Protein backbone atom coordinates (compact mmCIF):
# COMPACT_ATOMS: atom_id res chain seq x y z
CA UNK A 1 0.00 0.00 0.00
CA UNK A 2 1.68 3.20 -1.12
CA UNK A 3 0.92 6.43 0.75
CA UNK A 4 -0.16 8.09 -2.51
CA UNK A 5 -3.18 5.82 -2.49
CA UNK A 6 -4.29 7.11 0.87
CA UNK A 7 -7.52 9.08 0.48
CA UNK A 8 -7.80 12.57 1.93
CA UNK A 9 -11.20 14.24 1.86
CA UNK A 10 -11.69 17.84 2.92
CA UNK A 11 -14.70 19.96 2.30
CA UNK A 12 -16.71 22.95 3.40
CA UNK A 13 -20.32 22.19 2.63
CA UNK A 14 -23.89 23.30 3.20
CA UNK A 15 -25.10 19.69 3.00
CA UNK A 16 -25.73 17.19 5.78
CA UNK A 17 -22.66 15.33 6.99
CA UNK A 18 -23.06 11.67 6.04
CA UNK A 19 -20.86 9.62 8.36
CA UNK A 20 -21.54 6.31 6.60
CA UNK A 21 -20.50 7.72 3.25
CA UNK A 22 -17.39 9.48 4.55
CA UNK A 23 -16.24 6.42 6.47
CA UNK A 24 -16.64 4.22 3.38
CA UNK A 25 -14.54 6.67 1.36
CA UNK A 26 -11.58 6.46 3.74
CA UNK A 27 -11.73 2.71 4.33
CA UNK A 28 -9.10 0.71 2.45
CA UNK A 29 -8.52 -3.03 2.18
CA UNK A 30 -5.82 -2.64 4.83
CA UNK A 31 -8.04 -0.64 7.21
CA UNK A 32 -9.17 -2.18 10.50
CA UNK A 33 -10.02 0.83 12.65
CA UNK A 34 -11.48 4.31 12.42
CA UNK A 35 -11.62 7.13 14.97
CA UNK A 36 -14.23 9.74 14.17
CA UNK A 37 -14.97 13.00 15.91
CA UNK A 38 -18.08 15.05 15.28
CA UNK A 39 -19.07 18.38 16.77
CA UNK A 40 -22.71 19.38 16.93
CA UNK A 41 -24.72 22.49 17.78
CA UNK A 42 -25.38 22.56 21.53
CA UNK A 43 -28.85 23.88 22.30
CA UNK A 44 -28.17 24.15 26.01
CA UNK A 45 -24.75 25.09 27.39
CA UNK A 46 -24.07 24.65 31.10
CA UNK A 47 -20.33 25.25 31.32
CA UNK A 48 -19.11 28.82 31.85
CA UNK A 49 -21.74 31.34 30.84
CA UNK A 50 -24.78 29.01 30.80
CA UNK A 51 -27.18 29.80 27.97
CA UNK A 52 -29.66 28.57 25.39
CA UNK A 53 -28.88 28.53 21.66
CA UNK A 54 -31.63 28.68 19.04
CA UNK A 55 -29.23 28.12 16.16
CA UNK A 56 -25.75 28.88 14.90
CA UNK A 57 -24.87 30.60 11.68
CA UNK A 58 -21.55 29.37 10.25
CA UNK A 59 -19.47 31.07 7.59
CA UNK A 60 -16.09 30.25 6.07
CA UNK A 61 -13.41 31.72 3.87
CA UNK A 62 -14.02 28.66 1.73
CA UNK A 63 -10.96 28.30 -0.53
CA UNK A 64 -8.59 29.07 2.34
CA UNK A 65 -10.52 26.77 4.69
CA UNK A 66 -10.07 23.88 2.26
CA UNK A 67 -6.36 24.64 1.90
CA UNK A 68 -5.96 24.71 5.69
CA UNK A 69 -7.88 21.43 6.03
CA UNK A 70 -5.40 19.93 3.59
CA UNK A 71 -2.62 21.31 5.79
CA UNK A 72 -4.18 19.73 8.90
CA UNK A 73 -4.30 16.41 7.03
CA UNK A 74 -0.63 16.79 6.05
CA UNK A 75 0.29 17.51 9.67
CA UNK A 76 -1.60 14.39 10.79
CA UNK A 77 0.22 12.25 8.23
CA UNK A 78 3.59 13.67 9.32
CA UNK A 79 2.88 12.87 12.99
CA UNK A 80 1.07 9.54 12.52
CA UNK A 81 2.35 7.88 9.33
CA UNK A 82 0.15 4.87 10.20
CA UNK A 83 -2.97 6.89 9.32
CA UNK A 84 -4.51 5.64 6.05
CA UNK A 85 -7.56 7.76 5.20
CA UNK A 86 -8.48 11.21 6.50
CA UNK A 87 -11.77 13.09 6.17
CA UNK A 88 -12.21 16.66 7.39
CA UNK A 89 -15.57 18.33 6.87
CA UNK A 90 -17.06 21.60 8.05
CA UNK A 91 -20.71 22.28 7.46
CA UNK A 92 -21.72 25.94 7.15
CA UNK A 93 -24.97 27.90 7.06
CA UNK A 94 -27.79 28.01 9.60
CA UNK A 95 -27.53 24.97 11.85
CA UNK A 96 -29.87 23.92 14.64
CA UNK A 97 -29.20 22.12 17.93
CA UNK A 98 -28.20 18.44 17.64
CA UNK A 99 -26.95 18.90 14.08
CA UNK A 100 -23.42 17.65 13.35
CA UNK A 101 -21.41 20.65 12.13
CA UNK A 102 -17.95 19.21 11.72
CA UNK A 103 -16.32 15.82 11.29
CA UNK A 104 -12.78 14.59 11.41
CA UNK A 105 -12.13 10.93 10.79
CA UNK A 106 -8.92 8.94 10.54
CA UNK A 107 -8.51 5.30 9.58
CA UNK A 108 -5.61 2.92 10.21
CA UNK A 109 -4.84 -0.80 10.12
CA UNK A 110 -5.11 -1.11 13.92
CA UNK A 111 -6.64 0.88 16.75
CA UNK A 112 -3.52 0.98 18.94
CA UNK A 113 -1.10 2.98 16.82
CA UNK A 114 -2.40 6.51 17.30
CA UNK A 115 -5.59 6.76 15.25
CA UNK A 116 -7.54 8.22 18.20
CA UNK A 117 -4.81 10.79 18.89
CA UNK A 118 -4.74 11.68 15.20
CA UNK A 119 -8.48 12.48 15.15
CA UNK A 120 -8.17 14.45 18.38
CA UNK A 121 -5.27 16.44 16.94
CA UNK A 122 -7.28 17.08 13.78
CA UNK A 123 -10.24 18.67 15.52
CA UNK A 124 -7.97 20.75 17.75
CA UNK A 125 -6.07 22.08 14.72
CA UNK A 126 -9.27 22.70 12.76
CA UNK A 127 -10.42 24.97 15.56
CA UNK A 128 -7.09 26.83 15.49
CA UNK A 129 -6.27 27.49 11.86
CA UNK A 130 -9.22 26.71 9.57
CA UNK A 131 -10.99 30.02 8.78
CA UNK A 132 -14.56 29.33 9.89
CA UNK A 133 -16.63 31.45 12.25
CA UNK A 134 -19.95 31.02 13.97
CA UNK A 135 -22.55 33.43 15.24
CA UNK A 136 -24.88 32.31 17.99
CA UNK A 137 -28.56 33.23 17.89
CA UNK A 138 -30.42 32.79 21.18
CA UNK A 139 -33.24 34.26 23.23
CA UNK A 140 -30.93 37.08 24.34
CA UNK A 141 -29.84 38.08 20.85
CA UNK A 142 -27.02 37.45 18.43
CA UNK A 143 -23.35 37.08 19.29
CA UNK A 144 -20.23 36.04 17.41
CA UNK A 145 -18.41 33.18 19.11
CA UNK A 146 -14.88 34.36 19.87
CA UNK A 147 -11.86 32.29 18.99
CA UNK A 148 -8.57 32.89 20.76
CA UNK A 149 -5.83 31.21 18.73
CA UNK A 150 -3.33 33.44 16.92
CA UNK A 151 -1.58 31.47 14.15
CA UNK A 152 2.19 31.69 14.02
CA UNK A 153 4.21 32.35 10.85
CA UNK A 154 4.14 29.25 8.65
CA UNK A 155 0.86 27.94 10.08
Amino acid at each position, binding site marked *: MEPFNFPTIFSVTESEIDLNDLLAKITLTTTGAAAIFTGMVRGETNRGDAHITDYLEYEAYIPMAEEKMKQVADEIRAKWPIVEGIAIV*QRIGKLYPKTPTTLIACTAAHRDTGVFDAARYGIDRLKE*IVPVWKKEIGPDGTEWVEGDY*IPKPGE
Partner: protein
Amino acid sequence: MNHIKLLFFATIRDRAGVKSLEMDIPVDMTIEDLKDKLSIDYPNLKESMKSVLMTINREYAFDEAVVPSNAEIGMFPPVSGG
Protein backbone atom coordinates in the same frame (compact mmCIF):
# COMPACT_ATOMS: atom_id res chain seq x y z
CA MET B 1 0.93 50.87 -7.39
CA ASN B 2 -0.25 47.36 -6.51
CA HIS B 3 -3.82 46.36 -7.10
CA ILE B 4 -5.18 44.20 -4.27
CA LYS B 5 -8.45 42.67 -3.15
CA LEU B 6 -9.55 42.67 0.49
CA LEU B 7 -11.98 40.05 1.86
CA PHE B 8 -13.65 40.65 5.23
CA PHE B 9 -15.19 37.94 7.39
CA ALA B 10 -17.26 37.64 10.57
CA THR B 11 -16.96 40.63 12.95
CA ILE B 12 -14.60 42.45 10.59
CA ARG B 13 -17.14 42.24 7.78
CA ASP B 14 -19.89 43.44 10.10
CA ARG B 15 -17.79 46.51 10.98
CA ALA B 16 -16.62 47.14 7.43
CA GLY B 17 -20.20 46.90 6.18
CA VAL B 18 -18.97 45.21 2.98
CA LYS B 19 -17.69 41.74 2.10
CA SER B 20 -14.82 42.89 -0.08
CA LEU B 21 -12.96 45.90 -1.41
CA GLU B 22 -10.48 46.43 -4.20
CA MET B 23 -7.79 49.07 -3.90
CA ASP B 24 -4.43 50.27 -5.16
CA ILE B 25 -1.57 50.48 -2.69
CA PRO B 26 2.12 51.47 -2.91
CA VAL B 27 4.38 48.61 -4.03
CA ASP B 28 6.40 48.48 -0.81
CA MET B 29 3.45 48.49 1.57
CA THR B 30 3.63 45.99 4.45
CA ILE B 31 0.74 44.31 6.27
CA GLU B 32 1.35 46.72 9.16
CA ASP B 33 1.17 49.73 6.81
CA LEU B 34 -2.02 48.33 5.30
CA LYS B 35 -3.64 48.02 8.73
CA ASP B 36 -2.64 51.62 9.51
CA LYS B 37 -4.11 52.79 6.21
CA LEU B 38 -7.38 50.94 6.84
CA SER B 39 -7.61 52.38 10.37
CA ILE B 40 -7.52 55.86 8.85
CA ASP B 41 -9.69 55.26 5.77
CA TYR B 42 -12.31 53.18 7.64
CA PRO B 43 -12.63 54.46 11.21
CA ASN B 44 -15.07 51.62 12.01
CA LEU B 45 -12.22 49.17 11.51
CA LYS B 46 -9.72 51.00 13.72
CA GLU B 47 -10.51 49.03 16.89
CA SER B 48 -10.50 45.72 14.98
CA MET B 49 -7.03 46.29 13.56
CA LYS B 50 -5.43 45.46 16.95
CA SER B 51 -6.49 41.82 16.92
CA VAL B 52 -7.31 41.11 13.28
CA LEU B 53 -5.81 38.08 11.56
CA MET B 54 -4.49 38.87 8.09
CA THR B 55 -3.80 36.54 5.19
CA ILE B 56 -2.00 37.02 1.89
CA ASN B 57 -3.20 34.65 -0.81
CA ARG B 58 -4.77 32.34 1.81
CA GLU B 59 -1.71 32.06 4.06
CA TYR B 60 -1.48 33.76 7.43
CA ALA B 61 0.59 36.95 7.10
CA PHE B 62 2.33 39.08 9.70
CA ASP B 63 3.19 42.76 10.16
CA GLU B 64 6.53 42.81 8.28
CA ALA B 65 5.25 41.00 5.17
CA VAL B 66 5.18 43.13 2.00
CA VAL B 67 1.86 42.91 0.17
CA PRO B 68 2.43 41.53 -3.35
CA SER B 69 0.69 42.68 -6.50
CA ASN B 70 -2.79 41.24 -7.12
CA ALA B 71 -2.82 39.86 -3.59
CA GLU B 72 -5.99 38.46 -2.09
CA ILE B 73 -5.94 39.79 1.46
CA GLY B 74 -8.20 38.13 4.04
CA MET B 75 -9.07 39.93 7.27
CA PHE B 76 -10.89 38.24 10.12
CA PRO B 77 -10.99 37.58 13.87
CA PRO B 78 -9.51 34.40 15.40
CA VAL B 79 -11.36 31.43 13.98
CA SER B 80 -14.23 29.78 15.88
CA GLY B 81 -15.40 26.93 13.67
CA GLY B 82 -15.93 23.32 14.48
